[in-house]
């Protein structure tokens, strides 16, 4: 049975429970697929021994009362600390780092019986939208339409490529400005960023602490609900983790959205937006209307200020978070010359260990937080952030249940094509997703069609805070109406 890796989480779960399949068989199929897919550069640390141990343990406890993800093989983004396994946030500065502890999210998945196949490629410290800033080299999109290698998006590019190419049944991602939703859209898969505080950030290498959230990247909405359920928890080790019960997300998937109000924000209709993105959005709107939702035009007037506010707040928080990489406690330390003191050690270590984009963001963050600029840049950005959040609050108060937007301004672009562009061109990839992080809301990307060039395109739904169940259900309805089933043809 060579198609085992094509199973969705829900299908595999049911087959495992019935005894039609063992986790060891499923895990071995994934490990073989991974070994045959080095051209995608998605898995950067493979953990076959751990995977098979976990699979055997899962098979030993299988039965009706087995945990939710018992025996399901997953990939874990390299940003998550996994005990004893390299966890280096795709950075040279964490080369050789093997955490002595397990992130809360990955621990939750393993407690529910999940199997870890290995660690997944990403942009360095999750800073990037194309997986081209990784110390491991580019991850490659399994979708291919000509001679070019395409980006799987970023920063969770390895996660997106691995799920789209059926190397694993699902993967963890993290999303600070769109890093789950943009790569999901570029590879024709589903990805949800939950409300800020749903998933514990403990043990996830920090980029921008007020924006970072973990979430699942899966083959469909049901799988996203199942995996998200396991990832969420209240955790005393993260002071911003929400002390709220986690509802049954899968049970929320009724497909009935009659009477729901869907907002269409006029500010997301950007100048120069490709015709096919506009059409996809209109088609998605019509699908939700046909399913019984009420469609209303809404205004989110501060949308255009979201990216500039993000590019103050995220680098500011990053410059502070990344101060810990000093060559003392973990990771890389530069070789020092005779007479070098501790300052030279810091400066050389950080120059050698951080790639150019990370250095750029740390320095921009340092600048906007420096004496004399803190109010002009950082505090102003935080005030604008409050206004961006208020735009959403007002829409929800007016009765909107969810907001429909495009997920990305284009389909996947070629690796290397943005090399000469200035950094801001790359930042524009997140124009539709970054508002959601600033406002702390849940957002999901759902594949909705193919562009004229044959590449997948996604739509984004944005939900009310803590209403992931409702959001997933609306996404489920959209998924069923869109009927997206295309898969990349195997070339790797």
């Amino acid at each position: 049975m060579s198609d085992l890796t094509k199973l969705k989480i829900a299908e595999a779960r049911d087959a495992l429970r019935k005894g039609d399949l063992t986790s060891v068989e499923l895990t071995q199929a994934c490990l073989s697929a991974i070994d045959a897919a080095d051209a995608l550069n998605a898995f950067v640390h493979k953990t076959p021994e751990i995977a098979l141990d976990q699979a055997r343990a899962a098979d030993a406890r299988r039965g009706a009362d087995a945990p939710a993800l018992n025996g399901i093989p997953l990939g874990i983004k390299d940003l998550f600390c996994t005990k004893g396994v390299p966890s280096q946030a795709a950075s040279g500065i964490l080369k050789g780092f093997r955490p002595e502890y397990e992130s809360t999210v990955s621990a939750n998945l393993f407690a529910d019986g999940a199997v870890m196949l290995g660690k997944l490629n990403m942009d360095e410290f999750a800073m990037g939208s194309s997986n081209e800033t990784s110390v491991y080299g580019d991850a490659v999109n399994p979708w291919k339409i000509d001679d070019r290698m395409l980006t799987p998006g970023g920063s969770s590019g390895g996660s997106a490529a691995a799920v789209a190419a059926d190397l694993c049944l699902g993967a963890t991602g993290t999303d600070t400005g769109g890093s789950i939703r943009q790569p999901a859209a570029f590879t024709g898969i589903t990805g949800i960023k939950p409300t800020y505080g749903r998933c514990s950030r403990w043990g996830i290498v920090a980029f921008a602490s007020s924006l970072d959230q973990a979430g699942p990247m899966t083959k469909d909405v049901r799988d996203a609900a199942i995996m998200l359920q396991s990832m969420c928890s209240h955790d005393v080790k993260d002071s911003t983790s929400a002390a709220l019960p986690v509802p049954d997300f899968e049970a929320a998937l009724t497909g009935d959205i009659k009477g729901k109000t869907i907002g269409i924000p006029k500010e997301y209709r950007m100048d120069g937006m490709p015709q096919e993105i506009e059409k996809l959005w209109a088609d998605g709107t019509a699908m939700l209307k046909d399913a019984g939702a009420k469609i209303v035009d809404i205004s989110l007037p501060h949308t255009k200020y979201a990216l500039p506010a993000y590019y103050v707040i995220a680098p500011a928080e990053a410059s502070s978070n990344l101060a810990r990489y000093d060559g003392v406690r973990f990771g890389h330390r530069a070789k020092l010359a005779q007479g070098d003191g501790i300052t030279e050690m810091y400066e050389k270590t950080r120059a050698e260990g951080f790639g150019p984009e990370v250095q750029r963001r740390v320095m921009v963050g340092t600048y906007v937080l420096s004496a004399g600029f803190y109010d002009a840049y950082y505090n102003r950005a935080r005030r604008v952030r409050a206004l961006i959040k208020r735009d959403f609050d007002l829409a929800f108060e007016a009765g909107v249940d969810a907001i429909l937007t495009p997920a990305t301004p284009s389909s996947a672009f070629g690796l290397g094509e943005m090399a000469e562009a200035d950094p801001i061109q790359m930042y524009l990839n997140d124009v539709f997703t970054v508002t959601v992080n600033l406002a702390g809301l849940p957002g999901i990307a759902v594949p909705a069609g193919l562009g004229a060039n044959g590449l997948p395109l996604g739509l984004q739904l944005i939900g009310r805070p803590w209403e992931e169940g409702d959001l997933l259900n609306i996404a489920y309805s959209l998924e069923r109406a869109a009927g997206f089933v295309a898969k990349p043809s195997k070339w790797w």
Partner: protein
Amino acid sequence: MSIDIETARRVAKLARIKVEKDRLPGLAQEFSAILGFIEQLNEVDVDGIEPMTSVEPMRLFRRDDVVTDGDQQAAVLKNAPDAREGFFAVPKVVE
């Protein structure tokens, strides 16, 4: 706003990242472009708006002020580039 080479050098120093002299002009140019993009925020009327400090209005969790963890010297030092006699070792700091 245009960032000059001296400012770029100062920021690199504050960030503790060694930047070779010949890279400073390029870096200053990149900073200028990014800050130019950020300047759009000056168009927004933020009078009377409090800076956002928490994403969801919630009281940060407080726990009892007691020891919950510890005695893990070996685990803490395990990943250190240079650990000696139970300490992190660094170049001489005090003359």
